[in-house]
């Protein structure tokens, strides 16, 4: 670009610039005066047009308690414990790997030996106590990854608010039970 930048800027006064590539700033006309009032009027009309277009588009609100945003399939909601579908035995063998992986330390597992004849799980041992304190859980999903038997997975339920902290400690029976599907799942491609 030539040295004459056309806006009174002398490139020699800026030796730190290797190549002078000064981009002309596009300035609007000076405010004030009758011309300014005229332009302000025009811009006001443009603004009014913009807001009217928003009015015509209509509201985009999702009215939450009645209408819910669908969750994605990999959404990490409330945990679920699983059973084998054919035998009905629990998948959890009480290894406590989930409790070890949990960064929030909200899982408590007490394992017990399976007695032949009244087996609870498919493995050698089973979880006699399995509790998740959902008021501490951060829903990171590490328990799901740590589990060698896919016994614990994260579900889609996120509506878990309660009036009492004690009610937020979910026991094994609660986690094993089929959860009420309160949140819609996103359909393919949505």
């Amino acid at each position, binding site marked *: 670009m030539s040295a004459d930048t056309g806006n009174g800027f002398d490139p020699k006064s800026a030796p730190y610039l290797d190549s002078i590539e000064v981009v002309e700033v596009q300035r609007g006309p000076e405010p*004030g005066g*009758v011309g300014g*009032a005229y332009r302000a009027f025009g811009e*006001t009309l443009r*603004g*009014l047009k*913009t*807001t*009217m277009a*928003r*009015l015509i*588009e*209509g*509201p*985009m*609100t999702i*009215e939450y308690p009645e209408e819910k945003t669908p969750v994605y399939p990999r959404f990490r909601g409330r945990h679920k414990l699983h059973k084998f579908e054919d035998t009905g035995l629990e998948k959890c063998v009480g290894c406590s790997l989930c409790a070890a992986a949990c960064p929030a330390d909200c899982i408590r597992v007490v394992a017990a030996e399976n007695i032949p004849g009244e087996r609870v799980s498919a493995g050698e041992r089973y979880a006699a106590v399995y509790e998740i304190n959902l008021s501490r859980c951060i829903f990171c999903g590490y328990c799901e990854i740590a589990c060698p038997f896919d016994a614990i997975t994260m579900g889609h339920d996120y509506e878990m608010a309660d009036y009492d902290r004690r009610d937020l400690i979910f026991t094994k029976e609660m986690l094993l039970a089929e959860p009420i599907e309160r949140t819609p799942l996103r359909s393919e491609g949505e």
Partner: protein
Amino acid sequence: MLPLADTNFAEATWIMVVKSIVIFAVIFGILPLLTVLERKLIGRFQHRYGPNRVGPYGLLQPLADVGKLISKESFRPENAISTLFILGPLLPVLSGVMALAIIPWGDVQGGVGFYGIDVPIGILYFFAVGSIAFYGLLLGGWSSGSKYSLLGAMRSAAQLISYEVAMGLALLGVIMMSGSLSLVDAVHAQGEMWFIVPQFVGFLIFMLAGFAETNRTPFDMPEADAELVQGFMTEYGGMRFGSFLLVEYMEILVVSGIAAAMFLGGWMGPGPSWLDPIWMLAKMLGLVLVFIWVRATLPRLRYDQLMSLGWKVLLPLATLNVLVTAVLVVVFS
């Protein structure tokens, strides 16, 4: 007994009383609905729904609001000036109700004029009464004993002097064309053509000044909820605050009514004559929608910007408009 004002049309006293009650009831029925309309419309302008929980379509929202305001304590700051503080919200209500009287809803039908009162000083009455509202603002702001209130009051004083002159001059063109200060005569004079066509500049100036008169965005500096926490209303709570809000909507109706009568042909419209008040109301509501639309669009100006707009643009334009109108009226009459 001397009449309070010389009227163009004499009626029995009981008719006057009934008329005032009807106008009062109708307007105070519309006012709460206007607040819902405004909140819902602003919501739509912002891709939201606005209030829709209380009652069908949120129509009972004002009832809930007023219930809340009434049940609140009528608080008074320790260093406020008691009497003036109470007078603050009362004066604007008074002036708003008084200004409603001259809005013409229809012609004389069956011996009854469809308006509160048809005073020959019409527009002057509107300005005189409308200015009383600003005493309320100034007194309320000053007597609150709070810096925000005082700043709000000062701003309304600065605002008042910068738009009132232009507002008066804007209407002067219409007054010259109709040859009367009375609003009823102004409507009669628009039989062939609404004054918005020949007086378009006047209409624009009047509406701009009207935004300032009603303390609405873009000229809501006296309230300025972002920087002055409601300005002169800062120290008010409960229904005293509520009456300031009420006045704001009443003033919108009054300004819309004056504009509809002076520029949009008042009650004139197709259909039988009993439709007249409905036409008038429809025109007023149309202008109210403009008020809401502008509020949803424009940011608040600085108050030096309002003053320079008022003195450097509106006033010369209005004067020019008056001069041109005067010359044309003389030439064509």
